[in-house]
């Protein structure tokens, strides 16, 4: 069993910077957990505390059934893949993968078997005698993965492992990582600031904001029911439309028109969130959008514009052949169940 429990963990850097303000998480055995959030929100700090590279100011981290707070990284039985790979430049690929095993006193012939197996898994067999400088970026990334899997640790920790790859390779490697993790069944924590990566990889998605957890859930949960304005804006592309509104007897009053309000929401001022793909064209729809730019994406198109008479920006994701032209005013409708309402003061979800 190698579940990971993070219990009310805090991190205060010297100088009084509160990087992590009390995080509690439970990551089940074999689960792929993705930490996502904007730059500086403390993702790397949290990961590094789990790895043992950063001291834990308060709280506890357990891997399996051991509290690891005071263990050296090597004793925690984890492997980490760094953003810049951190391969040993003077060692061959084989040497890089074997180093951790060697330090653990694994016999030479066993090391060879393990490295060969890991290399075969990752398609690195033909590169074993090369130095990192003689590899492409993608191959180096795989060596970094190889160094992690060869030890068969209890957990993998990834800190933005794909951010140095080009877009196409990133996509391919993303799938490979997910596939590998599922085959090995190793508990993994993956840090990224790319919401797309987060959505596609995660079993459990953790959205962090300023050192605290904003929302935890499956990617679909987080997408369908964002717990706050912050999550609503962060997850989803193009981002959710947000506008001020008010609920009264007539329903939900938006800058663009009045629509039916979802049931069970208190009256008063609200922040309205509507995903671009939930806006559908309807000539008599209650919402109006004056189109400024139309982006064609092939399968769909994004109409960017403003609500006439208001300074509110809106994006509608449209499918179908009948696309609006620039300057046109589009009528749009949205189903009541696709409205997200947040408290304008606290930013929390209201329903």
């Amino acid at each position, binding site marked *: 069993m190698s579940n990971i429990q993070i219990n009310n963990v805090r991190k205060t850097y010297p100088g009084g910077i509160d990087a992590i303000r009390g995080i509690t998480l439970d990551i089940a055995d074999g689960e792929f957990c993705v930490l996502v959030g904007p730059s500086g929100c403390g993702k790397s700090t949290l990961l590094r505390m789990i790895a043992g590279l950063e001291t834990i100011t308060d709280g506890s981290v357990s891997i399996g059934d051991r509290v690891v707070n005071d263990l050296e990284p090597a004793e925690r039985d984890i*492997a980490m893949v760094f953003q810049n790979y951190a391969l040993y430049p003077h060692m061959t690929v084989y040497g890089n993968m074997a180093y951790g095993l060697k330090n653990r006193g694994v016999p030479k012939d066993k090391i060879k078997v393990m490295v060969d197996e890991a290399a075969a898994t990752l398609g690195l067999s033909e590169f074993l005698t090369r130095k990192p400088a003689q590899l492409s970026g993608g191959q180096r990334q795989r060596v970094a993965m190889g160094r992690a899997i060869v030890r068969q640790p209890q957990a993998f920790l990834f800190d933005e492992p794909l951010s140095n790859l080009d877009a196409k390779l990133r996509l391919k490697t993303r799938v490979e990582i997910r596939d590998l993790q599922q085959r090995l069944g190793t508990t993994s924590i993956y840090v990224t600031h790319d919401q797309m990566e987060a959505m596609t990889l995660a079993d459990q998605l953790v959205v962090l904001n300023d050192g605290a957890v904003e929302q935890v859930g499956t990617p679909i949960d987080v997408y369908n029911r964002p717990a706050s304005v912050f999550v609503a804006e962060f997850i989803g592309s193009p981002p959710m439309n947000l506008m001020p509104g008010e609920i009264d007897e007539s329903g939900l009053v938006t800058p663009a028109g009045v629509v039916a309000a979802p049931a069970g929401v208190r009256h008063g001022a609200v922040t309205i969130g509507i995903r671009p793909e939930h806006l559908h064209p309807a000539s008599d729809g209650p919402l109006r959008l004056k189109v400024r730019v139309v982006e064609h994406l092939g399968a769909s198109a994004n109409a960017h514009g403003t609500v006439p008479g208001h300074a509110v920006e809106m994006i509608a994701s449209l499918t179908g052949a009948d696309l609006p032209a620039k300057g046109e005013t589009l009528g749009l409708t949205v189903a009541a169940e696709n409205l997200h309402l947040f408290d304008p003061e606290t930013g929390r979800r209201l329903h």
Partner: protein
Amino acid sequence: MVERRPFLTFIQHAVLILGAAMFVFPIYLAFVASTHTAAEVSGGVPLLPGAEMIRNYSLVLGEGISAAGAPPLWIMLMNSTIMALSITIGKIVISLLSAFAVVYFKFPFRMLAFWTIFVTLMLPVEVRILPTFEVVAQLGMLNSYAGLSIPLIASATATFLFRQFFMTVPDQLTEAARIDGAGPMKFFRDILLPLSRTNLAALFVILFIYGWNQYLWPLLVTTDESYYTIVMGIQRMANAGEETPQWHLIMATAILALLPPVVVILAMQRLFVRGLVEVEK
């Protein structure tokens, strides 16, 4: 330099050749002088090599110039080599370790330690020569290899250099090694040392030559001929009392004294050229 102008190329080469010639000329003269008889040299050094080369060199190497009051050449060469190597290796070991400590370990007064080491850079042997001599004499280290080399080791010239280099080694490499279960000394041996190879080779050359060329210090601490170094030996030959200096033999000695540093440079150059070619991305 991508410019392709024949005239410019010509000027560049002329300047380079002239510069090189200026540096090589004294050495050439020394070599020429070492291939003539004493009589031929006494009036002024001829410009072309003479026929006495083999005789002169075998004389210097075999019997030494007893008249000049210096021990046989091979003893002086050996002494110089021992002294230069001790200084080089001693300095490198000390500076590697102290730089490692200063960069990778947090201990109280860490920066004070570093600056103390650094300050020794500003106090070369010549400046602290009297107190150093006093200490060495009281410790009974006069006329010994220890006396020749230890006081010169005790200035951490290279600590600064290694500190700067270690600080350019990415933190994540250190962290990867920690996760791979390498303790501090293992990390030092398996990662830092191999990465410092180029620096080590360059420093080895510089320090070896520094040690080899020491003159004042060996002169002070050795009175026993069997500890004379080659540089002071040459000096003694040139000031050999009443007799006229035997310039042809002195020059032969000087040429021979050049050889060990040249060998060191050539050997190390292979290492640091390889280091440079294999630049890690």
